[in-house]
C-alpha cells in the first residue's frame, strides 16, 4: 500500500515539469555563483576558493532556506492532490489504509523535493569545469572538486531541514487541507531563523543560538567560525564532527518527525465540514437548508432607484472598494500572523541590541528608527508582496470578477481602493512599530520620544518609498496572467534590482528604481543636510509611481480578454478618459526628471563607479612614477576657515610653510588635490605645469628651486559651496549642526598618494595593474621607508594655528588650545594654536555644544556634547583623568594643555585621536547604555582610555610607513586602555574583555583576504593590531609583570618621542620588551610578536576528593598542543615547552559571571598529556588549564571543565 502511493507520487512528479525546472534553476544560479566573482552565496575572501569545501557545504544550508517554499509546494501537492482535484471522495471510498496513503505520499514528495538540491552539485561541478575552459574568474580561485563536501551538505543541511520543514508543512497541509497554511508555516519557519539570529549577537548566548536555529546554519557557522583559509578550502563538517551540530540536527529533525506523526494522528479520510466556507463550497455544501419561495405571495416591488453620477458616486465606489479590500486583508490570518511576528521580532531586536563588547545602546529615537527599518521592514515587505498579489487577484480568485467587472465603475476606483487598502495596512503596521519603539524607549527609562522624527521618517518617508513598490507590484500583477508568476516576478525584481544596479554599475538615483540619496538621521541635524535632495527624488519617484499607476489602470485586468492585442486596444480606448490627467502627470514628471538630470549629471556631475575605478587606475598609471621624487615637507600651517552652517558652506584659506628636508634642490611641487571644492594657489615662485583636474593631480614648477633646508610659504583657498541637487549628498561633514571634517578633506597632499591606489587583489588584476603589497615590507634597515611615519604623507611634526568662525549659536573647534574668542556681527570667531608640535592630521568641528569642563594638574579636560546626550559625560571625564594619571606616571609627560572629547553626528561611528582632541561619534559613546552592574564592560571608559593612549602611541611616537607600525600605535593604545581599565575595574573585567578580543581575532583570521601576519609585521589588519594585540600584551604583562612592560614602553618612548625621521619600527619596542624579559621566558617574545602561535589546551578530566581536614583535593587531566601557523592558516604542531596556568574556581554567586578563584598556579608544560593535583579550601566548581585564557587558544571553550 505504501509503495503504491509512493510510486504514484514519484511518477506523478517526475512527469511534471516542476522538479526539473527547479533543478535547472538551482543549477544555473549555483553555476553563476561558482564562475562569477561578483556573485557569492555565503561569502569568501580572495584566498578562499570559489569551490571551497566549506563554501560548498554552506551553500546547501542557504539553498535549503531558499528551497523552503519548494518543500511546501511539493509536500502540499502530495497530500492535497486528491482534495484539489476533487478525487478525494473516489480515493477515500476505496479500501486503502491511512498509513500507506499518508506516508506513501509523504516520502514520495520528500524524495522529489531533493531533486532541485542536486542542482547545487551540478552547478559547482559544471561551473568549475566551464571556468577551467573559459577562465571567467582566475583559475587559482578553484581547487579540486570536493565530493565529500556535497555529501556533508546533504547530511548536515538538506536531509535534516527537509525532515523538519517537510514534516511541519505536510502535517499542516494534512490537518488543514489548505494550501495557504503550509506557506504561512514556511514563513514562520523563516522568521524563526531570523529571530534565532538575534540571540547570536552576544557571545554568551552561543549555546542558545546553536540550538535555536532550526536550519542549523548558525550552528554550523559557529562550529566553523575559527576555521582558517586552508581548512575552509579543504575541509567540510561531517554530521558527527561537532557535538552541537549533531544535537541541533537531531532536535529539529525530531520536531519534523513529531509533527509528521501528529499530522498522521489527526488526518482523516472523512469529509470535513468546514465553517466559514472555502472556495470549494460546491463539493462541501453548507448545512443551510434551501427554502421554497412561496409563489403565491405577492411580489415585493423593488424600490425605485436612480443611479448616481459624477464624482460623489466615484468616491463612494472608491470607499466601498477600499473598505471591502481593507477589511478582508486586515482580518486575514496571514496579515495578523505576519504582523504579530514582525512586531515580536522588532521588540526582540530593539530590546536585545548589543554592540561589539556585549554592551547596549540607549534607545535614542535615531537608533530606534534604524531598528524599525532593520528588523521590521522585512515583514512589512512580506505583507506588501503578499497582499498586492492577493488584492489584485482577489476578484479573479473568488470568481466574482465577472460580476464586478460588469459594474459601471471606473478602473481607477478599483485600483485606488486596493492601493489605499495596502497603504493603510502598512500605515497601521508602521504606526504599531512606532508605538512599540516608544514603548521600548519608556521600558528602558528613556523619555526623549521624538514623535516628530518617528512620524516623519517612518510614517511619511518610508511609507512613500514603500508605496512606490505597491504601484510596481500592482502593475506586475495586472499584467501577469498568473498570480504565482506575478509573485515570482515581483519578488525577483524587488530582491534582484539592488544587485542589478550594482552589477551594471549604475549609481544614478534617476535610474535605480525608487532610488534616493542615502542618508542618516542624527540628533544634531535631523535630516537637514539631505532634506532638499530627498524631497526632490521622492517627488520624482512618486510621480513615476503615478505613471506606473496610470499604466496599471489602463491595463487593469477587467473582462475576459487575455490576448495582448485586445488588451492594448482596450487600454488605448481607456486612455482617452485619462488623457488630461496622464499628460499632466507625465509632463510634471518629465520636468522634474529634466531638472534632476541637469542637477545631477551636469551641475553636480559625479563619477560613476566604472569611471572612478578607471580614474584611480589612471592616477596610478600616470603618476606613480613621481612617488619617490623629493618633495618639500609641510612644517607650519595656518588656517582661516569660515563656516556657514545654515547653507553648508565652507570657505578656507590655508598658508603652508613647506621646507626642503631632502639633500637636493627641489624644482617642482606635486600635489594630489582633493575633489571637494576648487583650489587656487598663490605663490610667485609657483607656475602651473600640469593640471589634471580629472585625476586630481597638479605639478607646479618652483622657480627658483627650493634649496635643501630652504623653506617657502604656499597659500591656497578652497571652498565648498553646495549648489542644486545631488545624486548623493556630498561633503555631509559640513552640516547645519555638527560639522566635522579633517584637514585632509579640503587640503591637497604634496606628492603622489600611494593609499589612493586600488587595493583589491582581484580588481588590480582586472585592470592589469601589478600586484601590490598592503604595506612596504618590514625592514628596519630600509632607511628610505623609515623617513615617513605612517600617519604623515607630506609632513612630519608641524605647528598649527587656526582662526575659525561659525554662526553665533555654535562653538567651533580647531586643533590646539583656544587662544582667543570674539564675536563680530553675527559671526563667532575662535583662534586656536597647537601647544606642542604634532602630526599634520586633525579635525575641525562646529555645532551647538554643551561643554563639561574640569581641570586636572593644569590640564583642561573638556567634553563637548549635544545637549541631550549628557549620559556618559562623567564617565568620559573620569576615563580621561584616570588615563592621564596612569600614562603620565608610567609612560611620561603629556605635552598638551588640554584634552577634549568632542561629539560628532552619527554619519560615522568611530572615535579618533588627534593631538589633545578626540572626536567621538554620537552613535558609539555618547549614547551607550551603561548599566550599573559591575559585570558589564564599560565600553565608553575603554574607548576614551584607548584614544587617550594614542596621545602617546601615535602622537608622541609613530612607526614608519611599513609593516608592523600599527603595533606601535594601536596595540599599545589597547594595552594602555587595558591597564587603566584593570586598575579601575579589576581583573575579572579583563577576562570578559579578552574573551571578546580573542573571539574576534580567531574569527577574523579565518576571513583574512590575503594572509595573516605575525603581530610585529601586521599590515593594517585590525584583528591583529587591536584584538590579537590585546591578548598578546596582556599575556606579556602576566608573564613579565606590568612594571617591566611599562618600563620597556617608556624606554622606547624616551628614544623616539617627537623625533624627526628616521621613524621607529615594531622591532624597536620589541627590543625593549626583550631587555625586560628574563632569559627563561625569552621564547615568548618570538612566539608572541614574530610568529603566529596558537595553543590547543583542553581539560579532559576533573575529579575532586574531600579531604578529612575539610579541604578538597582536585585532580585534573589536561592536553596541551602548541601550533605555529603560516600565513594561510596552515598549522604545524611544534613541541610544547611553555609556562601556563592551571586553576580552579568556586561556583559563581547568583548573578555573577565568574566564581572566586580558589587556585591559580603557573606550571611548565612540556608534554601533550598532563595530570595535576592540588588542594583547595572551598568546594570547586570548575577547574582546568589556562583558566584565564591568557594564551591564544584555537578553542578557548574547553579549557575549563565542570565537576
Amino acid at each position, binding site marked *: 500500500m505504501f509503495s503504491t502511493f509512493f510510486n504514484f507520487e514519484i511518477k506523478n512528479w517526475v512527469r511534471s515539469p516542476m522538479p526539473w525546472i527547479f533543478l535547472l534553476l538551482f543549477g544555473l544560479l549555483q553555476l553563476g555563483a561558482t564562475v562569477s566573482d561578483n556573485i557569492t552565496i555565503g561569502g569568501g575572501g580572495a584566498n578562499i576558493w570559489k569551490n571551497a569545501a566549506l563554501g560548498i557545504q554552506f551553500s546547501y544550508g542557504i539553498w535549503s532556506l531558499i528551497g523552503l517554499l519548494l518543500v511546501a509546494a511539493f509536500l502540499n501537492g502530495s497530500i492535497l492532490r486528491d482534495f484539489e482535484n476533487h478525487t478525494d471522495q473516489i480515493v477515500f471510498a476505496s479500501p486503502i489504509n491511512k498509513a500507506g496513503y499518508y506516508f506513501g505520499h509523504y516520502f514520495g514528495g520528500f524524495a522529489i523535493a531533493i531533486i532541485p538540491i542536486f542542482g547545487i552539485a551540478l552547478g559547482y561541478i559544471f561551473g568549475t569545469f566551464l571556468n577551467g575552459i573559459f577562465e571567467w574568474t582566475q583559475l587559482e580561485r578553484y581547487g579540486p572538486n570536493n565530493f565529500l563536501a556535497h555529501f556533508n551538505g546533504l547530511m548536515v543541511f538538506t536531509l535534516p531541514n527537509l525532515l523538519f520543514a517537510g514534516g511541519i508543512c505536510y502535517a499542516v497541509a494534512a490537518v488543514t487541507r489548505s494550501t495557504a497554511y503550509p506557506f504561512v508555516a514556511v514563513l514562520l519557519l523563516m522568521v524563526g531563523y531570523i529571530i534565532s539570529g538575534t540571540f547570536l549577537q552576544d557571545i554568551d548566548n552561543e549555546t542558545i543560538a546553536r540550538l535555536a536555529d532550526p536550519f542549523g546554519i548558525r550552528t554550523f557557522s559557529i562550529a566553523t567560525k575559527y576555521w582558517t583559509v586552508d581548512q575552509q578550502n579543504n575541509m567540510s563538517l561531517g554530521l558527527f564532527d561537532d557535538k552541537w551540530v549533531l544535537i541541533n540536527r537531531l532536535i529539529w529533525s525530531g520536531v519534523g518527525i513529531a509533527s509528521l506523526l501528529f499530522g498522521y494522528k489527526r488526518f482523516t479520510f472523512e469529509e470535513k465540514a468546514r465553517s466559514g*466556507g472555502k472556495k470549494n463550497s460546491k463539493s462541501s455544501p453548507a448545512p443551510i437548508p434551501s427554502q421554497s419561495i412561496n409563489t403565491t405571495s405577492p*411580489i415585493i416591488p*423593488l424600490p425605485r432607484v436612480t443611479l448616481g453620477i459624477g464624482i460623489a458616486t466615484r468616491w463612494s465606489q472608491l470607499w466601498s472598494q477600499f473598505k471591502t479590500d481593507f477589511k478582508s486583508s486586515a482580518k486575514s490570518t496571514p496579515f495578523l500572523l505576519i504582523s504579530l511576528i514582525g512586531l515580536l521580532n522588532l521588540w526582540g531586536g530593539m530590546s536585545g541590541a548589543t554592540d561589539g563588547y556585549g554592551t547596549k545602546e540607549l534607545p535614542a529615537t535615531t537608533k530606534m528608527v534604524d531598528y524599525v527599518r532593520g528588523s521590521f521592514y522585512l515583514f512589512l515587505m512580506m505583507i506588501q508582496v503578499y497582499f498586492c498579489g492577493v488584492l489584485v487577484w482577489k476578484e479573479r480568485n473568488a470568481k*466574482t470578477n*465577472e460580476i464586478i467587472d460588469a459594474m459601471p465603475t471606473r478602473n481607477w476606483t478599483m485600483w485606488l481602493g486596493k492601493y489605499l487598502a495596502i497603504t493603510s495596512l502598512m500605515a497601521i503596521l508602521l504606526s504599531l512599530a512606532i508605538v512599540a519603539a516608544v514603548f521600548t524607549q519608556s521600558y528602558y527609562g528613556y523619555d526623549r520620544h521624538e514623535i516628530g522624527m518617528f512620524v516623519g521618517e517612518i510614517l511619511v518617508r518610508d511609507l512613500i518609498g514603500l508605496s512606490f513598490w505597491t504601484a510596481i507590484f500592482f502593475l506586475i500583477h495586472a499584467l501577469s496572467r498568473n498570480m504565482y508568476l506575478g509573485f515570482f516576478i515581483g519578488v525577483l525584481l524587488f530582491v534582484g534590482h539592488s544587485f542589478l544596479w550594482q552589477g551594471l554599475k549604475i549609481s544614478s538615483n534617476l535610474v535605480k528604481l525608487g532610488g534616493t540619496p542615502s542618508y542618516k538621521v542624527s540628533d544634531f541635524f535631523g535630516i537637514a543636510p539631505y532634506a532638499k535632495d530627498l524631497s526632490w527624488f521622492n517627488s520624482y519617484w512618486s510621480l513615476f509611481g503615478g505613471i506606473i499607476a496610470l499604466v496599471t489602470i489602463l491595463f487593469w485586468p477587467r473582462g475576459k480578454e487575455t490576448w495582448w492585442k*485586445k488588451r492594448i486596444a482596450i487600454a488605448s480606448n481607456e486612455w482617452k478618459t485619462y488623457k488630461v490627467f496622464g499628460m499632466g502627470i507625465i509632463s510634471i514628471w518629465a520636468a522634474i526628471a529634466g531638472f534632476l538630470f541637469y542637477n545631477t549629471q551636469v551641475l553636480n556631475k559625479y563619477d560613476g563607479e566604472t569611471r572612478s575605478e578607471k580614474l584611480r587606475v589612471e592616477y596610478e598609471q600616470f603618476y606613480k612614477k613621481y612617488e619617490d621624487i623629493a618633495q618639500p615637507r609641510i612644517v607650519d600651517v595656518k588656517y582661516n576657515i569660515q563656516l556657514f552652517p545654515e547653507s553648508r558652506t565652507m570657505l578656507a584659506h590655508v598658508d603652508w610653510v613647506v621646507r626642503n628636508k631632502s639633500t637636493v634642490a627641489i624644482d617642482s611641487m606635486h600635489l594630489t588635490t582633493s575633489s571637494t571644492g576648487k583650489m587656487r594657489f598663490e605663490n610667485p615662485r609657483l607656475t602651473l605645469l600640469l593640471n589634471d583636474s580629472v585625476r586630481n593631480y597638479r605639478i607646479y614648477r618652483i622657480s627658483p628651486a627650493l634649496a635643501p633646508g630652504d623653506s617657502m610659504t604656499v597659500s591656497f583657498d578652497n571652498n565648498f559651496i553646495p549648489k542644486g541637487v545631488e545624486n548623493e549628498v556630498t561633503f555631509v561633514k559640513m552640516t547645519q549642526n555638527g560639522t566635522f571634517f579633517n584637514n585632509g578633506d579640503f587640503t591637497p597632499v604634496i606628492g603622489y598618494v600611494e593609499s589612493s591606489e586600488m587595493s583589491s587583489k582581484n580588481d588590480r588584476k582586472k585592470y592589469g595593474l601589478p600586484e601590490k603589497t598592503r604595506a612596504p615590507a618590514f625592514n628596519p634597515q630600509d632607511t628610505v621607508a623609515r623617513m615617513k611615519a605612517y600617519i604623515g604623507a607630506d609632513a612630519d611634526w608641524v605647528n598649527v594655528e587656526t582662526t575659525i568662525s561659525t554662526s553665533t549659536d555654535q562653538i567651533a573647534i580647531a586643533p590646539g588650545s583656544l587662544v582667543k574668542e570674539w564675536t563680530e556681527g553675527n559671526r563667532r570667531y575662535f583662534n586656536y594654536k597647537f601647544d606642542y608640535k604634532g602630526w599634520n592630521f586633525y579635525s575641525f568641528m562646529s555645532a551647538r555644544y554643551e561643554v563639561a569642563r574640569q581641570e586636572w594638574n593644569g590640564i583642561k579636560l573638556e567634553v563637548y556634547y549635544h545637549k541631550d546626550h549628557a549620559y556618559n559625560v562623567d564617565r568620559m571625564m573620569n576615563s580621561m583623568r584616570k588615563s592621564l594619571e596612569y600614562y603620565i606616571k608610567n609612560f611620561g609627560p603629556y605635552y598638551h594643555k588640554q584634552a577634549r572629547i568632542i561629539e560628532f553626528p552619527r554619519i560615522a561611528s568611530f572615535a579618533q585621536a588627534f593631538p589633545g582632541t578626540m572626536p567621538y561619534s554620537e552613535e558609539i559613546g555618547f549614547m551607550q547604555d551603561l548599566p550599573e552592574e559591575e559585570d558589564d564592560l564599560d565600553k565608553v571608559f575603554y574607548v576614551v582610555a584607548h584614544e587617550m593612549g594614542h596621545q602617546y602611541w601615535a602622537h608622541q611616537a609613530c612607526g614608519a610607513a611599513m609593516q608592523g607600525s600599527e603595533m606601535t600605535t594601536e596595540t599599545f593604545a589597547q594595552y594602555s586602555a587595558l591597564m587603566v581599565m584593570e586598575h579601575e575595574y579589576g581583573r575579572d573585567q579583563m577576562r570578559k574583555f579578552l574573551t571578546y578580543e580573542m573571539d574576534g581575532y580567531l574569527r577574523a583570521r579565518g576571513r583574512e583576504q590575503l594572509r595573516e601576519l605575525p603581530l610585529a609585521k601586521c599590515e593594517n589588519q585590525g584583528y591583529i593590531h587591536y584584538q590579537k594585540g590585546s591578548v598578546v600584551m596582556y599575556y606579556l604583562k602576566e608573564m613579565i609583570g606590568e612594571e617591566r612592560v611599562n618600563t620597556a614602553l617608556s624606554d622606547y618612548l624616551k628614544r623616539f618621542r617627537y623625533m624627526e625621521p628616521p621613524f621607529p619600527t615594531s622591532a624597536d619596542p620589541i627590543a625593549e620588551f626583550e631587555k625586560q624579559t628574563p632569559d627563561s621566558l625569552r621564547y615568548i617574545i618570538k612566539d608572541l610578536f614574530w610568529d603566529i602561535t596558537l595553543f590547543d589546551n583542553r581539560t579532559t578530566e576533573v575529579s575532586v576528593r574531600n579531604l578529612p581536614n575539610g579541604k578538597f583535593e582536585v585532580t585534573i587531566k589536561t592536553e596541551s598542543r602548541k601550533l605555529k601557523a603560516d600565513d594561510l592558516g596552515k598549522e604545524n604542531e611544534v613541541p610544547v615547552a611553555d609556562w601556563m596556568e592551571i586553576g580552579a574556581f568556586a561556583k559563581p554567586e547568583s548573578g555573577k559571571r565568574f566564581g572566586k578563584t580558589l587556585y591559580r598556579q603557573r606550571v611548565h608544560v612540556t608534554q601533550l598529556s598532563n595530570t595535576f593535583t592540588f588542594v583547595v579550601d572551598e568546594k570547586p566548581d570548575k577547574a582546568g588549564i589556562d583558566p584565564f585564557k591568557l594564551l591564544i587558544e584555537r578553542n578557548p571553550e574547553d579549557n575549563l571543565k565542570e565537576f
Partner: protein
Amino acid sequence: MQLSIQNLSKTYPNGVKALVDVNLEIPTGMYGLLGPNGAGKSTLMRTLATLQDADSGTVTLGDINVLTDKDAVRRVLGYLPQEFGIYPRISAVDMLDHLATLKGIPSGQRKDLVDALLQRVNLWDHRKKAVSSYSGGMRQRFGIAQALIGDPKLIIVDEPTAGLDPGERNRFYNLLSEIGENVIVILSTHIVDDVKELCSNMAIVNHGRVLYAGAPEAALQALKDKVWEKAISKPEMETYQAQYKIISNKLVAGKPIIHILSDEPPGDGFKSAEASLEDVFFAHIGAH
C-alpha cells in the same frame, strides 16, 4: 428598447471561431439563447456584458453602442455570469451593498434596495451568512438579486440553472419571470426546457453561428408533422443511422427511442411524434 446585433464576429488567438457573423434582433422580454456547450453562447453573452471585445460588427442597445460605450451599458446592465463566486467571509447583505455601491446607487436608497432584493429572492433570513457558505440554489438566487440592482434594462443570465435541482430550478424560473416586461432578459442555456418555459423569443447557436432565430412556436410549427419516432434495440442503431436522418435518440426504460426528420411518413414502424423544442434544437444543430 431593442438590442440589435449586427455582423458580430470573434476569433480567439488559438483559431477558435467563437462568433461568426452573428445577427440578432432582441426585443424586450425573455430571450432564450440555446446551444450546446462550447457553441459560443458565453462569448456572445460576455461581449454583450462588456467583458469581451468582438473583432468586428456592431451591437446597439437602444442608443447605446455596446462595443464602445461600455460604461453606459454597464449602467443599465444586470449580469449573472455562468460561474461566479463571492469573496470569502463576506455576508450577503454586505456584498450586495458593496455591489450596489459599485453600481452607483446613492447611499440614501441603498439600504432599502438591498433589503428588498434580499426579500425578493428569499434570502432575508440568511442575509448575514457568508455567501460562500450558501448552497447552489441560494447562490444563484443571490446572483439574480445582484443582477437586479439598479433597475437594469438589459439582464443577461448565463446558464443559470446548471447544477440546480428541479425545485431550485423552478424557484429560479419564478424569479426570472417576475422581471418586468420592459426589460430585455437574455437567458443562455443548453437546457431546452428553460427556453420552452420562459422565453417568447429564442435563437439557436452552434459553432459561433446563429442557426435559428424567432419564436419557439414558429420553430415548432415548422417541424409540425415532420418528426417521427420509433423504439429500436441497441444493435439496430447503426442500421437506422445509415438509413435515416436521426435528430436525436434517447433511452426510455433502457431502450433507445430515435427521432427522425422526414417530410413524408417513413413507415417502417415509425410513429408520428409531437415536435418538441428539443427536436428543433437537434434538428438545427444536426443540419450544420
